[in-house]
């Protein structure tokens, strides 16, 4: 959530002046290939998408569920319904077009989402949280999140790395990943399911056989032990943990000067 402020100090918050959010945005951008079609939500997914479009993937098509294709904002938007997002779009349409005739039609390569909680099968909760005594607090719900997770070819998640946000059991399964570990087709779902979880500490992927979350790389300065400690579910570990590459000078310039000069997303511990 945009309004959350954690107190964690263990994430790669500043490596040589580079913020964790910038590492996350660059990591997200790297996963997007030129020519692909992406359905993207606001926040760091949107920042990553904008970065990819301005660097290696100029022919990326970015779709926002409200009915905006390839918006080209000159001011930083506060939300999906902000007119700033609509600026200089190549198409204005509707849910029926974006989530229907693109996503449901099977044309969307990547769904790029945020999350309140994610479990080890990449299932996402954006609906509610449960307190220690079981009391329920509602948040945003699905909107298009479930549709995207159900229907995109691959799904990427950007979120803050915290034990309670990566729990053994979700408070609510809003948007399906591998559900209980079965193949997607067995569950009646399209696409290859969750592909990456990009956090402020690490990048996680999924084991092709068990569909369990697996550590792929740790951000510079973040230890594997602290990642394990801050993950609520058991995390598969590779023989050798790679180090997440830092954004280069050009990426940093675009992020800081062009995409989010006010730091609306990049200044947060996590967006």
């Amino acid at each position, binding site marked *: 959530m*945009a*309004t959350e402020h954690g107190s964690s100090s263990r994430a790669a918050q500043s490596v040589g002046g580079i913020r964790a959010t910038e590492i996350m945005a660059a990591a997200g951008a790297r996963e997007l290939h030129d020519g692909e079609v992406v359905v993207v939500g*606001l926040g760091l997914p949107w920042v990553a998408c904008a970065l990819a479009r301005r660097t290696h993937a100029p022919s990326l098509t970015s779709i926002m*569920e*409200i*009915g*905006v294709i390839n918006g080209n904002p*000159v*001011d930083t938007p*506060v*939300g*999906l*319904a*902000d*007119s*700033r997002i*609509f*600026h200089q*779009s190549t198409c*204005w*349409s*509707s*849910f*029926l077009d974006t*989530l*229907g005739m693109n*996503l*449901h039609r099977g044309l969307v390569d990547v769904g790029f989402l945020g999350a309140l909680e994610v479990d080890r099968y990449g299932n996402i909760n*954006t*609906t509610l949280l449960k307190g220690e005594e079981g*009391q*329920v*607090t*509602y*948040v*945003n*719900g*699905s*909107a*298009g*999140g*479930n*549709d995207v997770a*159900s*229907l995109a070819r691959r799904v990427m998640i950007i979120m803050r790395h915290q034990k309670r946000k990566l729990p053994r059991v979700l408070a*609510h*399964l*809003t*948007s*399906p990943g591998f*559900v209980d570990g079965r193949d997607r087709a067995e*569950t*009646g*779902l*399209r696409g290859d399911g969750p592909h990456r979880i990009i956090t402020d500490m690490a990048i996680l992927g999924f084991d092709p056989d068990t569909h369990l979350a697996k550590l792929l790389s740790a951000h510079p300065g973040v230890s594997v032990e602290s990642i394990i400690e801050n993950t609520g579910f058991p995390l598969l570990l590779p023989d050798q943990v790679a180090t997440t590459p830092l954004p280069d000078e050009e990426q940093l310039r675009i992020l800081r000067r062009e995409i989010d000069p006010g730091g609306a997303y990049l200044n947060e511990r996590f967006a």
Partner: protein
Amino acid sequence: MADKVRTAAQVVGSIPDGSHIALGGFAIARNVNTVVHELIRQRKKDLTLSQCVMGMDTDLLVGAGLVSRLIVGGGSLDRFGLVNCVNRARESGGVIAIDATSLSISFAYLAGALGISFIPIKSMIGSEILARLEAGEAAERFQRMDCPFTGEPYLLLRAIQPDVALVHVQRADREGNCQIDGPRWENEEQAKAAHRVVVIAEELVATDVIRQRPERTIIPGHRVEAVIHQPFGAHPTAVYGCYDYDAAHLTEYVRHTKRSGGIEEYLERYILNSSDYDDYLHKSGGLKHLDTLKARPGLGY
């Protein structure tokens, strides 16, 4: 030519308690606040609301205690905060929420608009959303079926045909031909699915103006029952090309809704003590303040 221009008070007077109303807002954009305020002033009861992404319009109606049921995909006030009144009502059991997704609600409206009784969809399968829907209040609206041609599994959704759809648009003529600039989320399907359509227009224009850009006419006049002309009628939410959201007012609203009892103060101050929407706009800073929100040319906000 039929002149369909009415006041919000006239329109709301014709909406019975217990109606199902589709709302045209999306988070902090084009909320149908002009009619929402009047529904609250006329103390309507037992409403069902449907919408893909709830915003301030739904939050106000739930906060004022007018709503029994919600059929929604999700909701927020973007970075200003959550739909706190809705969330509090869910938590206390004050409202029955039928929680679906943006696409499934759009599909159900589309089926309603096409006059077919159901529509197949591929999302929601495998999620707790569907498990809850199938076990909940509206279980009869969901069925599963394999495609008779290919054998693929589908979820079937019952069509939605709301009693009334309310949509806020940039411009309309007196016959109800109305044009939307910018994205239109589920507005076309929800309006065309509804039995009655009421539009709130920022600008009331001559039909000749509509004829200059007929491709932007999203809801043609013959589908529209009434046109309410209300400049700044979606305030404090944004109308693309007309004005930006009012950040200060939205912040004040969320400050009220965050604590229990706060919404009552907001309703009292801005809605119940206002004679109409113009009076509310006056209380919200008046012309000079509204002028600062006006869209800059070339930007639309």
